[in-house]
Structures are given as C-alpha cells and as structure tokens.
C-alpha cells in the first residue's frame, strides 16, 4: 500500500516528505523547536518530518521526532515507550489510529526500554513512529503526546506540529540536500529532492547529538 502511495506521489509530483513547524510558531530560516518547560524537565521537540522510508525491507510512513530532554532536578525522568503517541488525524473523526513508538535512539545507543534521563543531565533522543497500514498521504499535522515519570510525579505533555507549505518563506522543501555525511541543512533532516531509503544508524567518526539514520534511496523525480 505504501509503495503504491509512493508511486501515486510520484505521478502527482507530490513530495513524499512533510516538514513541520510547531503550531502557532513562526517559521524561520531554520528548523523551529517546540519547548515544554517545567520544574521537572525542559523538553525540546523537533519534528524532523513525516516521510516514507524502508524498515526491514518494508515501505513505511515514518514520523521522525527529535527530543532533547533536560532533567533539572534530582531523580530520574523516565518516559515509558508505550506512553508516546503520535496522532496524525487531520480532522475530528479521522479513523486512523495513533502511532506508537517503533524505534528509539539516544545518540548511537539503541533504546529498548524506557527512555531515562538522569538527574542534572540533558539527553537527546531520535524517535521513529512507523505506520505500515493505511497511511497513504503525508499528514497535515502531527500531534505527539507523551507521559513521563519523575519521582512520584507524572508529567504529561503534547506538541502539535503543522505541515509547512512549499510556498511558505523558508520552506525547506526546495532546498538542496546538504552533504550526505552531515545530513542536515538548516536543521532539517536530509531535505532535498531525494527519497530516504533503509533506516539504520549510519557510521560516523564524530560525536553528534543526533546522528543520521538514512542514506539517499534515490532521487525523487520532481
């Protein structure tokens, strides 16, 4: 189905990528983050797009989020993977189910269990939410919800992102791709007229907060 949608996207010249900005925030020259701050956490959320890529040989629609979480108190802050949810419904009554966390990384470390941030530290996460079902189109909005435990406290939060139109100033879609090894341009993850292929941590000799998980899977014909 996803493959079909890719083909359909190609025929209609619809870009198979969606770039997002936090709802209500002004689009700037570079990627804009949503920040949620409390006494227990400082959470920066960046939506690195919704795109079709391949996971274990299967075409999926992926929503890619980057989190930078600071824990400014004693005691761990822990996100349960099950508590992450991405809602792609563009309108009330949209039957599409919410996506759950498919894969999580912190720098080069693959995270299988809870996403834990130690006291008085900042930790980056790359979160991938995959949809392999009926998701044929790039969503117009992405609503991410989370829940974290900090001591006896439960911290619930959410961030709503809207899709950036191609004709908006600073829209990243017409931008050429940055050098492939670096993978970023203006903070956007691998923009440009390419499609993203198999998802896997790419080797890198340098230390980064967020690594690259794709190589260009081919040039997109538009």
């Amino acid at each position, binding site marked *: 189905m996803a493959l079909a949608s890719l083909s359909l996207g190609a025929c209609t010249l619809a870009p198979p990528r969606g770039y997002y900005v936090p709802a209500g925030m002004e689009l700037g020259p570079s990627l804009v983050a949503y920040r949620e701050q409390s006494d227990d956490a400082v959470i920066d959320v960046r939506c690195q797009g919704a795109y079709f890529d391949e996971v274990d040989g299967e075409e999926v629609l992926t929503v890619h989020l980057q989190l930078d979480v600071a824990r*400014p108190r004693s005691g761990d802050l822990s996100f349960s993977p099950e508590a992450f949810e991405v809602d792609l419904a563009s309108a009330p009554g949209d039957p599409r189910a919410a996506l759950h966390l498919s894969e999580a990384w912190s720098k080069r470390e693959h995270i299988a269990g809870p996403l834990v941030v130690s006291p008085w*530290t900042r930790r980056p996460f790359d979160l991938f939410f995959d949809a392999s079902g009926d998701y044929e189109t790039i969503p117009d909005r992405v609503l991410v919800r989370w829940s974290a435990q900090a001591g006896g406290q439960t911290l619930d939060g959410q961030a709503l992102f809207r899709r950036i139109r191609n004709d908006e100033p600073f829209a990243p879609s017409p931008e*050429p791709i940055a050098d492939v090894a670096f993978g970023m341009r203006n903070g956007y993850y691998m923009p440009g007229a390419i499609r993203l292929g198999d998802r896997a941590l790419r080797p890198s000799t340098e230390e980064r*907060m967020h690594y690259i998980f794709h190589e260009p899977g081919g040039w997109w014909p538009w």
Partner: protein
Amino acid sequence: MVTLLRLVAGVVAVVCLALAGAWLAADLYAPSFVDHQLSEMGLASSLSVGAVNLPRPDVARARDVDMRDPRTGDVVAHVDDVEFRYALPGAGGWSGVRPMSIVGRGGRVRFSRDEDDLGFVRAIAHVIDTVETWVEERAEAAGPAETGAAEGGEAAAPPELPSIEFREIEVVLQMPGLPLDTLPGCDVSVYLKGEDTHVEIHTGPPGGIVLLVFSSQGLKQIRVLDVPVEPCFALFLPEGGELLASELRPSGVLQFDLERDADGHLHAEGHLDEATLRPPRVPFPLERSSLPFEIDGSRFSLKDARLRFDGGEVLTSVDHEPGSLVLTLDVVDARFRADFLDLFPQGHSLSWLRCEDGGNLELHLRIEQRQAQGEAAAQGEPPVQVLEGAIARGLEGGGETTVRGWGGVLLHRVWIGPTPESEVAVDEVVGSFEIRDGELVLRETSGLFAEGVLRLRGRLDQATGDLQFNGSVFDADLARIRRAFGDSSDTSRGVTGWLEGSVVYSGRIGEPSAAHGQGQLSVRGGNLWNVKIFDAVVRALSLKKPGASESHRLEVQFDIEGDQLDINDLRLDSEFLSLYGTGRVRHLRDVDIDITPITVPLGPLGQLIEYVEAQLVKVEVRGTVTEPKVEVIPIKVVTRPVGAFWGWLTGLFSSDEVSPEEQPAPTPAPP
C-alpha cells in the same frame, strides 16, 4: 552554713546600718562611712558609692553606685540613683534591721565577654562570695547572740529580703571586636528563690526576659526568653564561638536555657527564631530562619537549622568543638540567583561568564576544619583557635579545611563572552558538579546554544584559579549566532550553516596569558561566502562568489596560546572554489591570516593545478574580523625547483625535506 538569703539580707543590713549611721552623723560623713564599711567587708574594690544623702532617718539615697569586675576593675554595673528604705536597727544584732526596699533608677549593666566569663556575672558572684565570708567571720566572732541564734542554739529565721528593683536600666552587650548592642529600658529585679539568688532582667519592648540564677557556687543558670538579639547570643557560646557571631552577624529572637552544674560543666539548649544571618561574602541575608542550637561544655552544635533566603532555604548543621568544625549545608530546589557565583572563591574573576537570575540549584556541602593539637602547640596557639581568621578565610586557606560536596544546577540563561557586545546566550544550562580536594569538578554540563547544544566538562582549582575543560558545540545555527552578536549587516546576511566544534583548554582565571589549548570547528550545510573575511577575499580576487544553494564546508584547526588563536589549518570548500589558510587571530579581533585560493575541482588533475595555483597567489588578510583588509600578493613566482614539485606530487619527499635554499621567497610585507 549560712543561707544565701541570709547573705543577701546581710548585705542589705550592712548597707542600711551604714547609711543610718551616716544619717545620724550627718550627711557630710556618710560617704566616708560607707566607704569604710564596704572596705571592712572586703567590697571596696567591687562596690563604690559616689554620694550619699539622708533625707529621712529611714531613707537613704545614694548616687552613682558602681559595681566593678574584681578582675579587671571595669565598671560592669552603674546605677544613677538608689533609694534605700529600711527600719532602724534595734537591739539584737541583724534581727533588728528591717530593710524594706531598694529601688534604683537609671544606669547600665554591661555584659562583656572575656576569655573566662562575663564580667558582670563574675562581679555578682564575687560580691556574694565576699559577703558570705564576711558574715561567717562576724558570726563566729560575735557568737549566737549577735547572729540571732535562739537560746536552743538554732539560728533565727533570716530577715526577709527587701524588694530590690532597678528601673530604666540599659543593658549593654559587648564583645571584643563586635559592635555594641544595647537593650534600653530594662528593669532588673533581684530576689531569692530557695537558696538561689535570681537576677531577672526584663528587656524593653517588645519584651523579653534574661534570668541569671546564682547559687552559693556562682552562676548556675541563664535563661533567655524572647530576647531580641543582635550579636549577643555569642556571649553565651563556648570560647571561640564569638567568631561565629562576628562572621554571621545574627539577629533574631533568642530563647535558650543554660545551666552550669556543680563541676562547672555547661549545658545549654535554645533556638534563635526569626533569625537573620549575614555571613561574609554571601551577598544576600539569610532570613526568617530558625536556629536550634545546643551547647555542651565546649561543644557547640546547630542541628537542622533552616536558613531561608530569597528563593529557597538552606538546611544546615554545625558541630564545633575545640580543634574542629564540621559544617553541612543542603540546598534543594532553590531558585538560582546570579549572585550565587559570588560564593565561589574565584567567582568574581569569571568575567566571561554572566548568569541571569532564574533556574534551580541543589547543593550538598560538608566542610570540615580540623587542627591537630601538636600543630597548634607548635605554633604556640591554643588549639581552640580553629576558627581564628574567620570562617571564610579558613575555608579559602585550605590546609586544615576539607570541603566536599556535590550538586546540580539549572540556569535559565547564561551569557558567555568577553564583552557585552560579543556575548552569546546559552539557555537552559543543566549540569552537575562535585567539590572535592579544593577542586570544583564540573561534570557534563550542557546548554542550548543557537538551536544547538553547548557542552562543557572540566575542573577548577578553587584556590589557584587553574582550570581545565573540554568544550563542545553541536549543531549550532550559525545564522542565530551572528544575530546574537548583533551582526545584521548586509554583508553577513545569508551566512548560514551548522556549527560543530570542540576545544581542550587549560588556563587560569584572570590570567589570559596562561591560556593554552587546541581545538577544531567546522561549519556544514550552509553558505559561508558572506562571512566578511571570505567575502573580502573573493572580492579581492575578482572571483564569482559560489552560489548560496551550494553546500559549503569550513574546517578549522587551531591552537590557543594566551590571547592568540593560531590557525593551523583553515579550509573552506565549495564546489568550484576552496580557500586554504593559516595564521593567527589576536584578542579575538585582529586578523593575520594568509589564504591560498584554489579554483579548480579536486581530483588528480586538480591536485596538479592546485599545487601550481598555490604557488601563484597568496591573499594576506589583516585588519580585524569585522573590518578585514585584504592584499593579494601576485606571483610568488614558482620559486620551488622542479624536484621539490615532483617530491610533493609523488609523495616521495615531504615538504619538510625541502632544503632552506629551496624554500619559497618570503612573503612581501603588505603596503
């Protein structure tokens, strides 16, 4: 055993007798008579009367009555005017005297602490002891009849103590090196309770009570209730404790109870409520605090005292005894204040760092100060002077002091930069630290910087200011950094890219010349040709500026030596133009960089032409970062022999192997 009641009654009777006799002899002879009587009793050095007036046979008025410390001779109590009312003595010794009342008005009592005790307390104890001796001697000399003993040999009931009151007395609290504190308008009353003499001082508004209880063995108890206090609480601390007062300058309402047992052992418990402390170097008062303390002999302890300040509170404990001081501080979830930095020994020298109020702080600190007995003896000092030199200096002095602790901090905003014009903001800085062996060890600390992350870890020697750190920046948006510098000039517009870098640095706070380090930075995924220096180079070479849509990459390797940045390798690559450079930047402003432009794509052929190009043109960049001056040096002429060229090309010879004769001609000086 003569009871205290009889002792006090005896004192009063003697004075009354003296005054009555003086009245009979006429006012003229009264002072000398009183002096004689006091001298006979052995009190001449302790009590003196300035003038005596006998308005009525049963009333005597004395002026300027002084009580002196028998050791120092200092006046420790002075009463302006005292009225004695008494019944004239009849036959039968002391039983004939009926002292009715003693009322004093005006004057002062001075509580002055010295190495042994309070002078006033010592003076009272001395009077009681002297009178007791005198009475016993007279009783033995006179026999039972004069002492009022009944025929059966039993002593007669002691006379009732007259009411003794002193009004409008000023209580003066004085310690060496401390400002005076006065409690005006106090009322002092003296009465007997059992065998003890009570001196009760009612302080003026808002009111409080100081109760001194004397037994036949001297001071027995001090009880303080609701007394507003400035430094006076230290009057009652063990020796050395007054330094706590001079350091902390406490004020508040004091409640405490001190008892001295028959062996002279002191024990006290109390608390200072609504206290305000003003420790040295702490730029804000600690207010609304409650300080429960305990004194046991020479040991002073403060347990779980809560010291509140604007933004949080400190839970602290102090354990002080001769030769040691242990202080613990615990701060949890306190709002970060910029002036916290002043608490660090080197904080005032951190000119590159400016924090804003706001954030969170957790700190757990244990400070131990110990002095070995042998060391103290060798220095000829008593071991109890562990606090000598004051707490703050002691903490800085190292040696005997160990400071250990850890904590965490969140700073909402930190400004980093040498000048306000070149500061950059780092937000939401979070990290933890450890304090040990005189070092502040900064564990991984990170902040948000131009949409990226700035990371720092290192250590600072709090005594010397020596520091080492590793710093990194990840994914910082160059455009935002330039905006942070306020650089919105047309030339610099369009400078974009993602900055990454790292530096290893060592140096000393306040000594820029001691800086030493090395690092690298790179900018990728953006357009750098509008950076003023590169823009100037391109213009000087009359080259077409590479397109903004190209992906440019800048890599710089540098060393830090004092206030100079040595650029070992600078390389800016785009598709059809590259710049290679080396040089230096002084004071982060003055530029001295030589740049070689290469205008061909790389590859085997490109390498050849690149070499040739490198021999043809050099660009000297001087001036400043914001106003670079560029000079194109045309043709260094191909000064290298062909052999060197082949060596370079084939890799058979490194450039280091070029003989001095084969070195290129020196670069012409700029005009």
